[in-house]
Structure formats: structure tokens, C-alpha cells
């Protein structure tokens, strides 16, 4: 509760920090925020060429199948990679001024959320152009986004604080995220996974999150509410755990940086 109070007091700093994270990314590039669209669009084109033609994947409407999973994945990927650096790269102000350190991972996660919401425009455009459109299941989308945000916030707290002590985390995560990409049903569908490996894949909350996005947007089916609430609960636990780790480690940030 005390933490909420503090963050509320420093809300202006949180706002400027999110703005700086968001704008700073494309500062000095000619196309600016347009890269938020172009980057995923090119990535989509590449995957859409590689997987159906070269690997002989025969899913209907593969581009849509791909895009509804790829955009949430990008949100995840960018948040985690930037989180790892967010405390270290702000060493200057951490050593000089007091402010609730939690603001930095919150700001990184939130600016990526905004970026994700912008790329959702591409997703919806693709859904309508392809004729799939949207169904009533769309009402569940905000809940899935919320679950993903909570999950990522938790991981963001964990990785940002540990990286201060072990700088390798930043580089290890690069490799790890590459693995994670293939551990989630993004370019393939979950039923292609051999049954004996499936439980292993399902340990990963991101696996389910991606599955829900596809279920809601591509198959236009209502997800099972009980399972969804379970996932929400687990993500809240991860967030609480992340905050605990962060609280423990933040005391020596100024000395370790």
C-alpha cells in the first residue's frame, strides 16, 4: 500500500518517464513512430514467406494465424529485453536522486504496452481485410492483455533488479528469448507439438497467453473462464514475487551501479 502511495506521488515522473521511453526509441530516425508499424510488418512478411512456402505449413489464412500471435510475442520480447537494461541505463539518476525505483520497470513495461496497442491496429486491419472480422469473443481481449501486462511487469521487476548484480543476464536473455520464441505456438499451432512434450510447453505462462490471443482473434471462440482466472492468479503471484525480489535488491542499487 505504501508503494502505491509513493508511486502515486511520483506520477508525474512516471508519466514523463513513459513518454521518454516511448519517444526516445525512435528519436532522430527519419520515419519516427512509423517504425512501430514497419518493423512488425516486415517481420510478418518474412515469416509469412518462410513458413508456408519453405516449410510447407498448410494452415488457412496463415498470415492472420501468425499475426495474432506474433504481435503479443513482440510485446513480450521487447518488454523483457528492455527491462533487463532499464535500471543499469538509468544509473545516473539512481545514484543522485531518491525516487521509487519501481517506476523504471513500470515505465518500460507500460511504454511497450502503448506500443503494442498501436500495433493492434495492424492486427485488426488484417482481420477485417482477410474477411475473418471479429466475433463476440473480442470482449475477452482486454482481460488477456491485462494478464500479459501483469505477467510481464512481474518478470520486469525480476530481470531489471538482478541485472544490476549480474550483468550477464542481459545477454543470456537474448539467447533465452530466441528459445522461448519456438517454445510458444507462434509460427506453428499448439496441436503440432508431440503429446509427450506438451506438459513441458504448458509450464510457460506465455504459451497460454499466446494460445488465448489466437483462440479469441483467429478462431473467434470464447475461452474457458475458469482456466483464464487461474492464469490471472498465477500471473499475480509472479508479480508479487517480482516485487519482493525487487524490494530486496533495490537497496544496494546505488552502490552496485
Amino acid at each position, binding site marked *: 500500500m505504501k508503494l502505491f502511495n509513493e508511486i502515486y*506521488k*511520483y*506520477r*508525474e*515522473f512516471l*508519466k*514523463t518517464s513513459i513518454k*521518454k521511453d516511448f519517444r526516445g526509441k525512435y528519436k532522430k530516425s527519419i520515419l519516427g513512430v512509423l517504425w512501430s508499424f514497419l518493423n512488425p510488418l516486415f517481420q510478418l512478411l518474412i515469416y509469412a514467406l518462410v513458413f508456408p512456402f519453405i516449410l510447407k505449413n498448410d494452415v488457412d489464412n496463415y498470415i492472420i494465424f501468425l499475426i495474432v500471435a506474433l504481435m503479443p510475442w513482440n510485446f513480450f520480447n521487447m518488454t523483457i529485453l528492455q527491462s533487463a537494461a532499464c535500471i543499469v541505463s538509468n544509473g*545516473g*539518476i*539512481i*545514484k*543522485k*536522486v*531518491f*525516487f521509487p525505483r519501481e517506476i523504471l520497470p513500470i515505465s518500460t513495461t507500460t511504454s511497450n504496452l502503448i506500443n503494442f496497442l498501436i500495433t493492434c491496429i495492424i492486427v485488426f486491419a488484417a482481420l477485417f481485410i482477410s474477411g475473418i472480422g471479429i466475433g463476440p469473443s473480442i470482449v475477452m481481449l482486454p482481460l488477456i492483455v491485462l494478464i500479459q501486462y501483469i505477467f510481464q511487469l512481474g518478470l520486469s521487476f525480476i530481470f531489471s533488479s538482478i541485472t544490476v548484480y*549480474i*550483468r*550477464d543476464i542481459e545477454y*543470456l536473455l537474448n539467447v533465452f528469448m530466441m528459445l522461448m520464441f519456438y517454445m510458444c505456438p507462434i509460427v506453428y499451432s499448439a496441436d503440432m507439438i508431440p503429446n509427450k512434450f506438451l506438459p513441458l510447453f504448458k509450464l510457460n505462462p506465455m504459451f497460454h497467453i499466446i494460445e488465448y490471443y489466437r483462440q479469441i482473434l483467429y478462431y473467434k471462440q470464447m475461452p474457458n473462464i475458469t482456466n483464464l482466472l487461474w492464469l490471472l492468479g498465477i500471473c499475480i503471484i509472479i508479480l508479487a514475487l517480482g516485487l519482493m525480489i525487487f524490494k530486496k535488491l533495490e*537497496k*544496494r542499487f*546505488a*552502490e552496485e551501479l
Partner: protein
Amino acid sequence: MKNNEIAIEIKNMSKNFIIYADKANTLKERIIRFNKNNKEIRMVLENINLKIKRGETVALIGVNGSGKSTLLKLITKIIYPSKGTIKVNGKVSSLLELGAGFHPDFSGRENIYFNASIFGLTKSEIDKRIDSIINFSELGEYIDSPIRTYSSGMYMRLAFSVAINVDADVILIDEILAVGDQRFQEKCMNKMLELKKQGKTMVFVSHSAAAVEFLCDRAIWLNNGKIEMDGNTKDVLEKYTKICG
């Protein structure tokens, strides 16, 4: 003494720094040097007990490396004590380093917003203060130019103006009064005197005996991480100059 009259209370507080001869920052180094003891624990502050009342203006004096700045950092909660407790009542503004978070590409005005927000001010609070901040900085029309075009004096003036206008109850100042020219320095001193009259608690580190005498009622002399003497400014300064002169 009633509790709400105390602004800062430090009890049995010690602080060590772990000094790495050669810091293992990466996992590889950590594994290779596992068990090799290349660190040293250095006691920077030892068993400090201190009570500062509301409205007091206190100077911390002592030679370089005696722990003055570390003590200020501990009071601001940038670092935390290894032992003991520090309690601060009220909002703290620390002028440990001027211009934290200044971005060279943004204008002076934008940087005021950014810098003041780090001190925990909301937008409307900054809106209310912005005119007095700009006035105090005497930057005039330059306020809307990017601060990379500023001279170092202008930069410091702007930073000081923001920090001094953050309405805090406890103000911590670390040897930053060498701002601008003679006239601006006098202006800063007068501003501090004004804050003192408003009943703000101030703790400030300085090597300038004149400034200390001008502003403070009480002086604390730190020597090797311990309080050597605590008392009336004049007495402490006298003894300090006799010994460390």
C-alpha cells in the same frame, strides 16, 4: 521532546561499503574467482547517533573522506544503512547533485518539468512554481533554448533554481553553493536564509567556513566516520580550524 519536533533521527547507524579490488561484474568472472577474496569491507560511518530538530540549520564539516556526503545520501535514502535506523519526518529535497535527469536536447522549460518531477512534484505543482523558477534562474529568453547551448553557469543556475523551489520540509545540500557568479551566489545565500526563516530544516555540507557561520546554528564535525564534535557553530568551527586548519 515531542516526536513531531524531530526532523531527522539517526540511531546507532553504521554504514560499510564493500570495496572490490577488481569487481566481478559478469557471471564468468564470478565463477572463475569463486572463493577468491578480493573484496574489503570499509567502515564509512560508525555508530552515528543524531537528532536534528525541526527548523534547525545544521552544517556537516570535516576533511575529505570523513563521511559527510555518505551521511547525506543515507538521509535521502539513495543508499541504506548497514546497521541502525534513520528516520526522517517530512518531505526531503536533496541537492546532492544539480541537474539530475537534465536532457541536453530539451529546452530549459522542459527540463524544469522533468527535473522537478524526479523530486516528486506533480504537473500542477510545477505549473504553479514555473514562473518563480524561471525568474530565479535569470535565464530570461534562453529558457526555451535547448540546454546544450547553455554555459556551465547558466546550467547550474537553472538546476539550483529547480532544486531550491521544490517545497520540501527537509533540505539537504552538498557543497553546491559555488553556483554562478558572486552576485548569484549571494542571491542563493539569501534564498537559503529565507528558507531558514520559513522554518525549513536544512543540513548542509560545506568547506566554506564563512557560509557555515552565516547560515548555521549548529555544526557537526565528522572525522573518520565518527562524530568528533557536535555543538554551536562557532565553537565547533574554532576547534576544527585549530586542528585541521
